[in-house]
Each structure stands twice: as C-alpha cells, then as structure tokens.
C-alpha cells in the first residue's frame, strides 16, 4: 500500500464496464453496464448465481480476461485508467495494488514448488530485495494468516497442507505485497463450514490490520450478511440491486433479490415452504427483451418486456439502487416472498407467464391461494 490516506477518494472506480465474448453461437454478454466504487477498508459483497458475471467482472479488473474478450467502459485505480493496458503493463498493478484470492485452493497453488518459494516469488515480482529477505517476508505472511510454525511450513509443498491451510496460503500470497484491493472470488465455497468460519475471520482481521478494501464474491447470502458493508446483487451480467447490506436484506426492492432470499432455508421459516424462483437464468447470448429477469418475475408487467429498467434510487436512499420498473409496487407487499410461492408437483408453466396480461389482479388472487394451502399444510 502506498500510504494510509483517510480521504473519501475511492480506491477503485468502475464505470459502465461491459464485457463481451464473441463466439460461434453469437456474442455472450457476460457483463453489462457495471458501475461501483470502493473506498479503503470497505468490504463489498457481490452475490449472484453461476453465470451472473461475478467472476468475469473481477477478472476484467485484474486484466486476466482472454484476448478474445471485448472490454468497454472504465476501470480506474486511484484515478489511473486500467482498461486498455497490455498484459505486461498490468503486472505493475496485479498483486501489488489489486490482488486476488481464487476459489479452489487445490488448483491455485503450484504442486512442484514449496509454499515459501511461491510466496517469495510473488514478493520478488514487486520488490527489489534479496531472496533471503523475500523468504523472510513469506514466513511473515504465513504467520499473518494464522498458520502455526510458519518457518517450518514454508518449506513444505502444497500437498502437505489441508484444504483450509491451503486457502490460508492463497490468502497469504494475496496479501504479501500489501495490496489496496483484495478480490476474493468464492474463497470458502470449497471448504467446510467450520473451516469457512476460520477463513472469514482471518480475512476480516487482515482488513482491519491493513485497511485494504475487499471485494467478496460469493453465492452464499449468509457469508455476505456477516461480513460486508455494501452489497451488489448481480443477475444476467448486470447489477440489479445495490445498497448497504441492511437495506438490501431487510427491504429488498428487486424481485430477484426477494426470490434469492426466499430460496435460502432460514430457521425463521421452519415449517413454511421455500419460495424459489421458477425457471432458469437466461442465456447470455439471447437475453430476453426488456428486463432480463422478466421471464421469471411474478410481478412482471408489459413495461418490463419493453425496456430494461435503469438503476432507480429506491426509497430515497441514495445508496440503495434497484433495476426494477415496479420496485414501488414491490414495496407495497407485506411479505413479498409469497409472490414466488408455487407448487412443484406437476408444475410446468412458469407463474410469470400467466401473469403478463393483468399483473395486479392475478397476484392478489395467488397470494390468497398460497395462504390457504399453507394453513392446510399446517393443520
């Protein structure tokens, strides 16, 4: 880190980032109009299902996309533009300014070199020091992530480490150059819950010690709830809702977020049915016209098929943004999760398809219906 400036100047500013991959079947719109800012010490959560563009956008920030990718928009790190830089020009920033923790600790380390060697190599990339000093730094980094006996462990190979320990090594590698921004791409998905708790604790401690900003990419809403300040919900390559974690979880203003929250079995919902989103995410080659979520949305209205909504400020809070034409109507429902309730046995037609003509009337009726079935189930 250059210095610990306490200004409100964002470290990273991404504006209108668009990533496309031309393929034989057509252009894959992996990321569309993504914008966000990140301040020092801030933790930004990015949630979404597979194929929502979470990982591709972080690869774009690090300049790790294949040459075939078409990147448009701007990625500015401390005011310096990163888009358009060559692979070699990016090396100055990669690991030093912005670093990354990959998902799978089993494949992101080189099996034929010792852990210490790999850490020292990462340090030497950005520092003109002796190999001995780099090794000492490697041992220090291992200690920082809570690996016992770091001097002995540094001489071992990755296969001598357990999954959780390997992920710690990957984190050590990400922080060895003291970066300002750490991108953690599903850092705990491959790990057991007890180990996940250890790793998340380590990450937050490192944030406190180095005041690095963290972008936490995950599909686990529980992980997001506990550790992030701001959250972005991604769907079909774009942000559909953003805000502080309390705003988004307590007062979701985008039906997709509501569906996602309703799909997660929560202890307070015991005895009630989950309310999953029907259908499947759209193909990124043939996006639906208008709002990308419209084919699965229980609140869909004709306007949703005509134009893709912009990011509206929901409920007056500047930080709470939603990409939904009907967020105001959604706010009117006491228990919006019920909108998604449907039967699985024999279910074929997505509910949304039945609601296109007259959204208001049918939704009300459906709500009454699901209330009855729940009572029946309870009795």
């Amino acid at each position: 880190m250059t210095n610990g400036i306490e200004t409100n100047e964002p470290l990273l500013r991404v504006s209108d980032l668009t990533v496309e991959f031309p393929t034989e079947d057509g252009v894959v719109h992996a990321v569309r109009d993504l914008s966000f800012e990140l301040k020092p010490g801030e933790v930004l959560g990015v949630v979404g299902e597979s194929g929502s563009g979470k990982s591709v956008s972080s690869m774009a920030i690090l300049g790790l996309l294949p040459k075939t990718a078409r990147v448009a928009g701007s990625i500015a790190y401390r005011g310096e533009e990163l888009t358009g830089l060559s692979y070699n020009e990016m090396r100055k920033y990669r690991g030093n300014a912005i670093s990354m923790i990959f998902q799978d600790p089993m494949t992101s380390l080189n099996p034929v070199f010792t852990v210490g060697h790999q850490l020292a190599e990462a340090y030497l990339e950005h520092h003109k020091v002796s190999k001995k000093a780099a090794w000492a730094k490697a041992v220090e980094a291992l200690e920082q992530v809570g690996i016992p006996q770091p001097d002995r462990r540094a001489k071992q190979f990755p296969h001598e480490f357990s999954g959780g320990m390997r992920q710690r090594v990957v984190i050590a590698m990400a922080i060895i150059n003291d970066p300002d921004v750490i991108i953690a791409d599903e850092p705990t998905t491959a790990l057991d819950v007890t180990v996940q708790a250890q790793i998340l604790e380590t990450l937050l401690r490192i944030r406190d010690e180095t005041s690095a900003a963290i972008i936490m990419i995950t599909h686990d809403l529980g992980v997001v709830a506990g550790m992030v300040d701001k959250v972005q919900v991604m769907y079909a390559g774009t942000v559909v809702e953003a805000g502080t974690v309390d705003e988004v979880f307590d007062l979701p203003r985008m039906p997709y977020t509501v569906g996602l929250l309703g799909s997660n079995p929560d202890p307070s919902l015991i005895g009630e049915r989950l309310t999953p989103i029907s259908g499947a995410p759209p193909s990124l080659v043939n996006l639906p016209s208008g709002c990308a979520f419209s084919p699965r949305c229980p609140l869909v209205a004709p306007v949703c098929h005509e134009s893709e909504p912009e990011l509206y400020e929901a409920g007056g809070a500047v930080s709470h943004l939603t990409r939904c034409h009907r967020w105001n109507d959604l706010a009117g429902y006491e228990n919006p999760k019920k909108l998604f309730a449907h039967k699985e046995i024999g279910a074929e037609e997505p509910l949304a398809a039945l609601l296109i003509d007259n959204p208001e009337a049918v939704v009300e009726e459906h709500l009454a219906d699901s209330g009855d079935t729940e009572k029946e189930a309870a009795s």
Partner: protein
Amino acid sequence: MSTGTETRPAAGGADTTGTPLLQVNDLFKSFPVRGGGIIPRTVGHVQAVHGVSFDLAAGETLGLVGESGSGKSTTGRAILQLHKPTSGSVKFEGKELTTMRGRDLQQIRRDMQIVFQDPYASLDPRWQVNDIIAEPLRIHRYGTTEKIQARINELLQIVGLNPEHRNRYAHEFSGGQRQRIGIARALALNPKFVVLDEPVSALDVSVQAGVVNLLEELQHELGLAYLFVAHDLSVVRHLSHRVAVMYLGSLVEVGPRELIYSKPMHPYTQALLSAVPVPDPKRERERQRNRIVLTGDIPSPVNPPSGCRFRTRCWKAQEICATEAPELKKRGDSELLSACHFAEEMPVA
C-alpha cells in the same frame, strides 16, 4: 409440518406397526489403504464408518450431517449394500440386508433407491430421458412398453418436467432439471425409502429451493422415508424430522430436529451450528461475536485419535476423552443422544 418431531402419517399405506422401516446397528465400513512398492500390500485401513446405529420410520426424514470426510455418503451406500459393510447389521422391514445376495437383494432394491449428488455425472449423456427413467422399470419387469411409457409420462409430470421432453438427452437440461430426472428415476419403482446423497449441493440457491420443495411434496404425497445426507445444515434443518450429526465415521449426536438446532449437547454440534452464517445481517453480526471457531481440520480417518474422535479439536477435552470413547446415549435430562463425556446444553442463536 409445524412440530416436525412426530412421524408424518404415511400416505402411501406403509406399515404402521411398531418396527421401524430401517434399522441400522453398529455398522462398520473400512477401506484398505495399499502401499506402493513392487508387491502392493495393505498398510492400513480408512475407517470410513465406525459403529453407526439408528432407526428410520416409514415416512420419516433423518438428516445426516457432517463435514467432508465424515463418512456420511459411505453410510448411505453401505445401507443400500452398494458398499458391502465390513460388519454390523442393516435391517429393512425386518429383513437382514448384509447377508442377502443375488435375486433377493435385487428384489428388495425396488423399495430402496438413491439420488446422487452430481446431476451432471449421474446421468448418461448419450441416453434419452426416456431410457434413463425406463431402465429401472425394464430391469424389474414393470410391464409392457405402453405401460412403461405411461409410467414415464406420469413420473415426469410428478417431478415438474414436461413429458414432451422425454426424447431429449440429459445434456439439454439445466442442473435443476437434471436432478429432477434423477429423482424421477429413483421414484420409478415406487420405493419406500430413498437415500438422498447431497441432492441439492451442486445446484444454485434458487434452483436448490425448488428441488427441496419437490422432495418435501413427494414425501407428503408418497409417504417416502428419506435418509438425507448433506453438509448444508440449513437445508437439513428445513427438510428433516430428526437429525444425526456425524464426525469422523461416528455419530456424535442424534435427536429431533428442534432440539438439535436449539439446544445441542455435543460440542461439535454446537461448533458446527455456530459456524453456519445466516442470511440476516443483524443476527449474523450478533452470531459472529459469539462464534465458536474450531481450530484445525478433521483428522485423518486412517489414524483416528484414540478415545473420543473429536477430542483433538474440542475445547472441553480432558484426560478421560483420550482413553475412553464416549457412548452415544442420553445425557442429563435432554432427549438427545450425545456421545460426549461433558455433554452440556448450550443454546445456539
């Protein structure tokens, strides 16, 4: 479904006598570890399942939770005799399975089915959905081609797929739809008992919830008994009547869902529950403050610790834990069966 502890009345007309549908008693399964060298010889044993006992009633769901490597899946497969158990007894409707062979075993497998974890690997990509679901029907001589076709259509409808898609190949379906095909295949012969081996862990959250709901509805309609093997504690909580917690091949705690989740007695259950993040920012911040973070990892099942297998990571461990393996029995005045010398109730938020 509000109390969850009592057995749901079985809609499929399963027997309502006192004997449980499935009785597992002191089940052991170990796999030999072969060393390298010119003449490979056995250098040790992975004790994957170590003395597991439980009962399962008709129409009931028992959730089997634990971390990777704890022997959950092996238990499920040893019950179905897909792995021959090393020792112990598995009784299905009073009939001993471990000594059963050939035709008898094939006959009884009509009633016991399994849904696998990975919907991408468990369906043959070169088969049409039709063939996939017809296979068990053909093996067990369900009837004429027309009868089989009618049954396939019915099954596809039950699991929420369009019967018109039966001539498609598995790769044309999404993950959630594939898992539905796997469920249809398992249900083809009208089983009484299904082992669900991590059926939703490969799926995205929103898709996962649909499959969870489907499993719940199917149990209700068909009176199925489930052994639900999973590492995701929130899904297990949603679906199970009783929960068994497994650690390194042994059960550490068994009991009604409500008790396991609200007043666990075993330190491992307490740590496991406390480690699960909940999707509610305010509660999660509170939980984070009181979180029990275990040190280290699960030990190797080739060389498990002496005495209590959890003692190497346990904050309560004392000398007795190294010498004497605790029995799985009622401790204190709790209804739960716990295998810990120092079992003590602790509410988990």
